[in-house]
C-alpha cells in the first residue's frame, strides 16, 4: 500500500507547491486588502468579467452544438468545415487575436461592413472593443466544443432515435425532446469547460485592447496582471485573485458532484 502513495508523491508535492500553497499566498496577500475591492475600477472589472462570461459561455456552447450537428457525417465538405472550425483551437490566442488587429482596423478588409454597422473603428469604441473580445473568445473555443458534441452525438443510442422516427416525431421535436436531453451530460461538461475558459483565458485582451477603451474590456485576470506586474500593488492584485479563486471554487463545488455522476472514470 505504501507503494501506491510513493507513486502519488510527485504529483501531490507539485500540486501542494503550485496550487494549494499559492491559494494560501493569495489569501495572505489579499485578505488585508479586501477593502480596496470596492474601488470603481475593480467593480468595473468584476462587471466586465461577469458580462463577458455570460455572453461567451452560452454563445460558444450553442455554436459548438450547432456546428457539431452541421458537420456530422463524412462528406468532403463536412470534413473541411470541421477542420476550419477546429483550427483556432490549436492556434496561440495571441496570434489569432493579432489577425483581428488587421481585420478590424479602420482601413482593413471589413471596413465596409463595420461602417454599415456603425462601428468604423470597433477597437476604439467601448462597445465595439468588448464585442470584438467576446467574438474572439467564442471563435477560439467553439471548435473544441464542437468536438465534444460530435463525440456525444456518436454515443447517442440509435434505437431511441429510430423509435421516435417510427412514432412519427418530426426533426425539431426529436431534437428538442430526445437529442438535447440525452446530450445534457455533454452540455454540462462543455459548459464547465467554457466557464473555466472564459475566466482564465485573457491572452487576446493583451494583444487587442489592453483592457480599454475606458475599461470596457478590463477582465478580472487582466486587472490582476496590471495591478500586480505593472503597478506592483500585490495586496490589491492578491485581493482580486481571491475573488477569482472564490468564483472558481464555487464553480468546482457546484460542478464536482454532478460531474462525477455524469462522467465515468471507471470506463
Amino acid at each position, binding site marked *: 500500500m505504501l507503494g501506491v502513495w510513493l507513486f502519488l508523491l510527485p*504529483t501531490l*508535492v*507539485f500540486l501542494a507547491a503550485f496550487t494549494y500553497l*499559492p*491559494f494560501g499566498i493569495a489569501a495572505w496577500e489579499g485578505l488585508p486588502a479586501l477593502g480596496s475591492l470596492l474601488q470603481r475600477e475593480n467593480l468595473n472589472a468584476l462587471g466586465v468579467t461577469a458580462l463577458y462570461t455570460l455572453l461567451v459561455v452560452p454563445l460558444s456552447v450553442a455554436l459548438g452544438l450547432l456546428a457539431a450537428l452541421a458537420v456530422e457525417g463524412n462528406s468532403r465538405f463536412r470534413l473541411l*468545415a470541421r477542420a476550419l472550425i477546429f483550427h483556432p483551437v490549436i*492556434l496561440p490566442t495571441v496570434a489569432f487575436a493579432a489577425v483581428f488587429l488587421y481585420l478590424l482596423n479602420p482601413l482593413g478588409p471589413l471596413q465596409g461592413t463595420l461602417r454599415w454597422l456603425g462601428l468604423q473603428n470597433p477597437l476604439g469604441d467601448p462597445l465595439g472593443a468588448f464585442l470584438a473580445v467576446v467574438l474572439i473568445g467564442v471563435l477560439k473555443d467553439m471548435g473544441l466544443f464542437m468536438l465534444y458534441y460530435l463525440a456525444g452525438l456518436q454515443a447517442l443510442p440509435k434505437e431511441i432515435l429510430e423509435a421516435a422516427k417510427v412514432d412519427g416525431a418530426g426533426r425539431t421535436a426529436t431534437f428538442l425532446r430526445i437529442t438535447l436531453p440525452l446530450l445534457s451530460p455533454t452540455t454540462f461538461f462543455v459548459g464547465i469547460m467554457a466557464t473555466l475558459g472564459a475566466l482564465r483565458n485573457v491572452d487576446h485582451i493583451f494583444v487587442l485592447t489592453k483592457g480599454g477603451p475606458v475599461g470596457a474590456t478590463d477582465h478580472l485576470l487582466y486587472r490582476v496582471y496590471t495591478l500586480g506586474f505593472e503597478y506592483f500593488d500585490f495586496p490589491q492584485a492578491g485581493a482580486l485573485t481571491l475573488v477569482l479563486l472564490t468564483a472558481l471554487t464555487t464553480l468546482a463545488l457546484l460542478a464536482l458532484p454532478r460531474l462525477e455522476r455524469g462522467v465515468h*472514470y471507471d*470506463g
Partner: protein
Amino acid sequence: MTGSQAISPATGKRKPLGMALLRNAPALLLASPFLFIAAFTLLAAFTPTADLNRGQLGSFTLENFRLAWESADFPRLYANTLLFTLGLLLVQLFTVTTAGFALAQLKVRGRNAVFYLILAQLFLPPSALILPNYLLIHRLGLSDTLTALALPYVASATGAFLLRQGFLQVPRELLDAARVDGATPWQILYRVMLPLVRPQLAAFALVSLVYHWNEFLWPLVVIQSREKRVLSLGFAAFARSAESGMEWGLIAAGAVLVALPLVLGFVLFQRAFVEAFARSGLKG
C-alpha cells in the same frame, strides 16, 4: 439535422455538386467566418504592407516573412519553446504515469479525498494563480528561467485521470500473473502496463504540447529577458511594435510563423489530434 441518418449513406454514386453544396450548406455557413479569417491572414502575409494600407490585395511578396523572421528572432523563439514544451512533457510523462497508476490502484479509505485534491487543479488553473505563483518563483530565485515556466504544470490532473483511465482498462489477470512471477510494482508499471497505455500517453502528449506551445500569460509574468522569450511572448511584443507602424503584413506573416508548426502537425496528424482533444476532457 439529426435526421440525416434517414438519407441513405454513400450510395457510391457521384451526386451533382449543387445538391452536395445545398445539403452541406449549414456546415459551410458555420465554417465560412473561419475560412474568411484564415484566408485573409494568408493573403495579408503575402501582400506588401504598403498595398494593405491602401486596401489592395493581389500582389505577392515574401518580404513580410523575411522581415518578421529577422525582427522577432524566430530561431531563438522556436528553440526556447521547444526546450520548454519538450522538457516539461518529459517530466509530465513521468508524473502522470506514476499518478495514474497509483489512482488506478487506490482502493483504500481516503481515496475520494485524494481524487478531490487532484481534481482541484482543474478548477484552479495556474493562469488564475499567476500572482502567488510568481511570488513563490521569485522567492525560490527562479524568475526569468524556463524551468519556472514548467513548474506549475509538472503535476497534471488531466493527465493523471487520463492515465488512470488507461490503467483501469488493463486486464486484471495480466497484473496477477506478473505479481505471481514476483515482479515489483515498479517492474509491473514499466514492463507490463506502460506499453498498454501508449494511446493515453500519446493523447496527453499532444494536448500538453499544444497547450504549452501556445501559452502566453505565465511566460509574460515569469520571463523578463529577451533571450528567454517563448514563441507567443516574442510574437506579442513583435505584434505590438508592428501595430504601431500599421505593418499588417508583418503581423500576418508573424502569426503564420507562430501557428505554422502546430498547423502542419494538425494537417499531418488530424485524426490523432482530434482524438487527443476528445480524450483530454474528463469524459471517456
